[in-house]
């Protein structure tokens, strides 16, 4: 089962390379995604998923992240056939194969409970995303891909160095060096403190780079700005989820080793810095896809901030992981439609989206309210829970900063979003031939429905998953 979960998308990627019919190739992605989602559901119901002597397993954190990533990917895969029909002549073979490889590697990151294997999967995932980012094959997407790979490669290298330090922490104490997370958590109290301390910093910087936390976020605006919207959704909702999960694993080890207080302080500080950087750069942002990138920086900040506060905020942060990933899907897919319809992503040209593409414009506007935590959307519920957690733990200063930053983001992002959706489209705008259709609007609408549903009512099975994951991290 554990092997099938990543092997099915991997075989799908192989099939995408081999299939000689370009018209049917995009449907392979949809098929692979559906099969993956079905397997995930079976795995969750089945319970006991293990392979390779514990190298692959599902703990409560994975049981939350895996269905999330799979659902998001499925929604995005519904967008693929229509998108590639619009972009005929592009490198679709590579694109479809890379998408499925991306899914396989995300699954492997989530499933792997071995330090080295997880790292290898993350590296492979980065390589798989390069052709996705370079899909447009122009100078700007090339620049974005170059930055993404170089910054990502440094992050991955630091993560490896951190992993070696962590292994040394075990070696130093004369422990049997197992690189399985469960063993490391169990051995936590005996690990050599100075090595563990340094290891956590390196791992935090390394995986934090992949997550796009400030100040390691420099790749994000370029990558999200130039990538196809669907790839932006997968990076902002999928890859960042996986990187966050990796961070949580190391936090878990540090906490078990008695270094939790330091880790939490670091997370609160970096969380607030990320929120501030996002807030500052979102204001007056004229490129609405870059705006979404800074929004992602902000929300990554909120995630680590919630974990740093702990207690109720841990539950809030894990709920926010779900809310943010789905909302980012809504935003990026609708932004992609607006981008296509206007042939531009700058507010100088893009005005009156509600008139030109009414459905996409409305979804984009709704997505804006969701992402800035307005009721009745899911992020409202999760951010409110994090805020309550801050009050419960007595972190009033942090709570005040959080509220101020969330307000600045709302005002700054609102300016850009409103100028995109309102008003009249520029009269001289060339016809791009893009109109709202089931294929382009449906996936975003599906995700928006989920965001609204989770805002109004968290279904008990999902709530159980979040509660178990929070209890796993924070047993107190």
């Amino acid at each position, binding site marked *: 089962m554990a092997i099938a979960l990543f092997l099915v998308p991997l075989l799908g990627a192989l099939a995408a390379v081999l299939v000689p019919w370009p018209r049917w190739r995009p449907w392979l992605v949809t098929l692979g995604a559906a099969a993956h989602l079905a397997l995930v559901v079976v795995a969750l119901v089945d319970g006991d998923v293990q392979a390779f002597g514990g190298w692959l397993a599902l703990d409560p954190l994975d049981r939350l992240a895996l269905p999330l990533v799979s659902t998001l990917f499925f929604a995005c895969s519904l967008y693929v056939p229509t998108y590639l029909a619009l972009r005929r002549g592009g490198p679709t073979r590579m694109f479809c194969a890379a998408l499925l490889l991306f899914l396989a590697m995300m699954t492997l990151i989530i499933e792997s409970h071995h330090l080295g294997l997880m*790292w290898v999967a993350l590296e492979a995932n980065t390589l798989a995303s390069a052709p996705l980012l370079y899909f447009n094959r122009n*100078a700007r997407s090339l620049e*974005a891909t*170059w930055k993404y790979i170089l910054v990502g490669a440094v992050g991955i290298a630091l993560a490896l160095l951190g992993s070696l330090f962590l292994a040394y922490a075990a070696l*130093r104490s004369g422990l049997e060096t197992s690189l399985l997370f469960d063993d490391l958590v169990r051995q936590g109290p005996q690990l050599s403190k*100075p090595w563990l301390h340094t290891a956590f910093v390196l791992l935090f910087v390394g995986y934090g780079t992949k997550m796009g936390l400030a100040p390691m976020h420099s790749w994000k605006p370029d990558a999200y700005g130039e990538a196809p919207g669907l790839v932006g959704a997968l990076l902002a909702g999928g890859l960042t989820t996986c990187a966050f999960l990796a961070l949580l694993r190391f936090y878990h080890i540090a906490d078990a080793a008695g270094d939790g207080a330091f880790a939490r302080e670091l997370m609160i500080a970096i969380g607030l810095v990320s929120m501030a950087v996002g807030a500052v*750069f979102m204001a007056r942002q004229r490129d609405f896809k870059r705006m979404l990138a800074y929004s992602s920086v902000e929300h990554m900040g909120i995630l680590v901030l919630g974990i740093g506060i702990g207690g109720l905020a841990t539950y809030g942060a894990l709920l926010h992981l779900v809310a943010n990933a789905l909302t980012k899907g809504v935003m990026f897919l609708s932004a992609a439609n607006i981008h296509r319809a206007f042939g531009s992503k700058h507010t100088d040209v893009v005005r009156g989206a509600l008139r030109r593409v009414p459905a996409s414009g409305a979804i984009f506007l709704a997505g804006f309210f969701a992402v800035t935590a307005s009721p009745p959307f899911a992020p409202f519920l999760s951010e409110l829970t994090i805020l309550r957690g801050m009050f419960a733990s007595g972190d009033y200063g942090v709570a005040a900063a959080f509220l101020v930053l969330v307000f600045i983001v709302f005002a700054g992002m609102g300016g850009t979003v409103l100028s995109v959706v309102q008003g009249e489209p520029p009269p001289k705008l060339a016809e791009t031939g893009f109109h709202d259709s089931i294929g382009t609007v449906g996936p975003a609408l599906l995700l928006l429905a989920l965001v609204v549903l989770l805002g109004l009512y968290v279904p008990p099975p999902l709530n159980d998953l979040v509660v178990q994951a929070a209890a796993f991290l924070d047993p107190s």
Partner: protein
Amino acid sequence: MVVTSFVDPLVLTILVINFLLLGTSRIGAAINGSALQGVVLGALTVFVHGALATRPLVVAVVAILIKGALIPGMLRRALRDAAIRREIEPLVSYMTSLLLGALATAAAILFASDLPLAPEHVGSLVVPGSLATVLTGFIILTTRRKAITQVVGYLVLENGIFLMGLTLHEAMPFLVEVGVLLDLLVAIFVIGIVINHISREFASLDVTRLESLRD
């Protein structure tokens, strides 16, 4: 029986190459320097182990092939295709980067002396040498402007990490070793392809031209 007293001189060689890399303006020399580092690292893989065994030998051969021959070959090819010889004005002068390198090496030695080492590594240069090499790579990566020199910086950074990995060689499973080497190869490969495209699109390998995306 292999003599472990070769270990420290070899680590010193790596440190000396670090400074050569920091001070040179010739890209060809930088590539040769990183290749030599790769070969020394391969040799170290054998010497770090007390006794001669198959596994370290295999890793050493693979490391020398990839770090010492394959990747430098790819880089030289990219260099020839793009017809450039020298790094243009780096962001900081060579003197400053040498000074930064010296500071980084001192900091690495101080920092490593604070870390409690396992009995078999006490007094050895491997851990401070590894940290110094990682920092040197980072300095080259951030202060040079040519894409190809940045790749050399990244290689040096990876070499430093590989050196750290040698302390854990017995504890780390084979899969991880192979994974590390393969991923290094593939990462540089992809970066190489990208460089190739950059040279076509911009007719130059100057990454400061890559700044149309700004806020």
